């Protein structure tokens, strides 16, 4: 199936939803503040574009820094645990305890502790993205055939070398799928944290627009956030197919 053919169905689906949307507004006389019409949202996006892009830039910056930070720490930690099982056993209860708190519950703590600036959002994103990557990385690193590990050992390879040559590449698909899931989560968590308190960003725009009864702006910001998430996700999926080539 060609790329164009693959696109036909989702586009068809989107058109149906758009038709239902517009139809509902007309038939039920839904007021703009409950469900604005699509052209009105498009117009709001066009009119507000510079501000929306400025907000998006802040949100993406926070999401990106937190994502890279969280991902890197998660992979490093997973590797350290594989290299030093004793460390893993000692630290696991702490990790489980931290992870069993739903990530949004940390948002108020992060805001009070790190302030309203980007630091609190970056910390939140790092935590959320980090756990998604960590769980997958651990699974990937541990799912390796013990016979393959034995083979490496018989060649005289140490733990470090086994990780580098065998475990890390073998765990790559799992790590990459963790990284992929973490992308959308990062942006959403950044927005959630911004909505609770921020100087800038899409989430802060949504919060202010909500409080100032500027519902078209709320919709505009949501559409921009969603499109940005989808674009990044699509981009990553594209890179992923090239990165894990041996499947």
């Amino acid at each position, binding site marked *: 199936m060609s790329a164009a053919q693959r696109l036909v169905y989702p586009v068809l689906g989107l058109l149906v939803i758009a038709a239902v949307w517009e139809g509902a507004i007309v038939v039920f006389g839904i007021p703009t503040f409950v469900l604005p019409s699509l052209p009105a949202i498009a117009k709001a996006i066009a009119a507000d574009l510079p501000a929306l892009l400025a907000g998006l830039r802040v949100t993406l910056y926070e999401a990106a820094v937190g994502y890279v930070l969280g991902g890197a720490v998660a992979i490093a930690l997973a590797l350290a645990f594989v290299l030093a099982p004793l460390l893993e056993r000692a630290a696991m209860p702490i990790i489980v305890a931290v992870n069993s708190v739903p990530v949004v519950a940390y948002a108020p703590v992060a805001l009070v502790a790190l302030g309203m600036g980007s630091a609190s959002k970056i910390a939140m994103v790092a935590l959320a993205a980090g756990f998604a990557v960590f769980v997958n990385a651990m699974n990937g690193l541990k799912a390796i055939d013990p016979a393959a590990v034995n083979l490496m050992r018989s060649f005289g390879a140490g733990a470090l070398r086994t990780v580098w040559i065998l475990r890390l590449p073998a765990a790559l698909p799992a790590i990459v799928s963790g990284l992929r899931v973490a992308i959308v989560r990062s942006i959403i968590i950044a927005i959630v944290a911004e909505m609770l308190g*921020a100087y800038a960003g899409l989430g802060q725009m949504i919060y202010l627009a909500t409080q*100032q*009864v500027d519902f078209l702006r709320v919709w505009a910001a949501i559409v921009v956030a969603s499109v940005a998430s989808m674009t990044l996700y699509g981009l990553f999926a594209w890179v992923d197919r090239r990165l894990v080539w041996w499947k």
Partner: protein
Amino acid sequence: MRFTALVTAALVAGAASLAGTASAAEAVSVRLKWVAQAQFAGFYVAKEKGFYAAEGLDVTVNPGGPNLNGETLVASGADQFALAGGIENLLASRGKGLPIVGIAMMLQRTPSAYVAFNDSGIRSPKDFKGKKVSTFFTGAHNTLYAVLSKFDVGAADVTVVPQAVSMAPFIDRQIDVATVMLFNELNVLKTRGVKDFTVFRAEDYGVSFPSDTVIVNEKLIAERPQTVQAFLNGSMRGWKYAAEHQEEAVDIVLKAASGLDRAHQLAMLAEYSKLMVADLGTEKGIGVLDMTKLGAVRQSLVDRKVLDAGVQVGSALAPRFWDAVPTQYKKP
């Protein structure tokens, strides 16, 4: 939507939270502008003490939150009443075509003020010039700009940043001037032991922006004016009782929203009552719509070009309901 309403009804009925309420009473809801706290004591008191029931109403008090606003919910019909923001928010909503009307105004005076440390050299709002000032962009920013304009300080002359969550940036001196709600953040500063700072009250510079508007949908006024009257009667009675029995009122709030700090809530209610029973509120009664003040606020917004000159105070407010509230329910 009808299906979801049905599901809601079934769930709510099942949840037993509403079980046992009088079936004859008319069910309405009021949306608060923030999470439950003593700022809204009057509504909780009216419900708890049966003031609403006496008016034939079964009122559900719905708290607000960071991603809600009462104006939209009342306009959409999700809630019948709301305690919304300042008059400027009401006017802005009307400018956007929301069919909402103000029927009472809880705070007769500007609830916000500004704080700066004594050693910062800031002696008056004139000195805000060139400083970093944080404020709430949900209405309080209008007050700030009005104060600054009294000292010929333009919006571009100060660095204004959004404020939320915590007073820590001010305490840590990351910002020079912070906005405080007299009934909330100011008290937070005191309980945290912060000293040696000066409070600049907007009110002292002739900037009087009444706040906390009780709003209702135009449609409800047209269709069931007696319901609007009943709600306002009960609410004003609740507020008068709350202002006069503050300990009891706070206990009622705590019962509804467990987990709040009692001392903080008491201080909040005390300060809130002062702003409520002030100026025309003292003279005429709690919740009065001070048309002179409100007109002045509108003018200052139009002057600053943040409000369309076509929006009029007259059509945004319906004082006749408050006027009809029995005097013993509102006069302190």
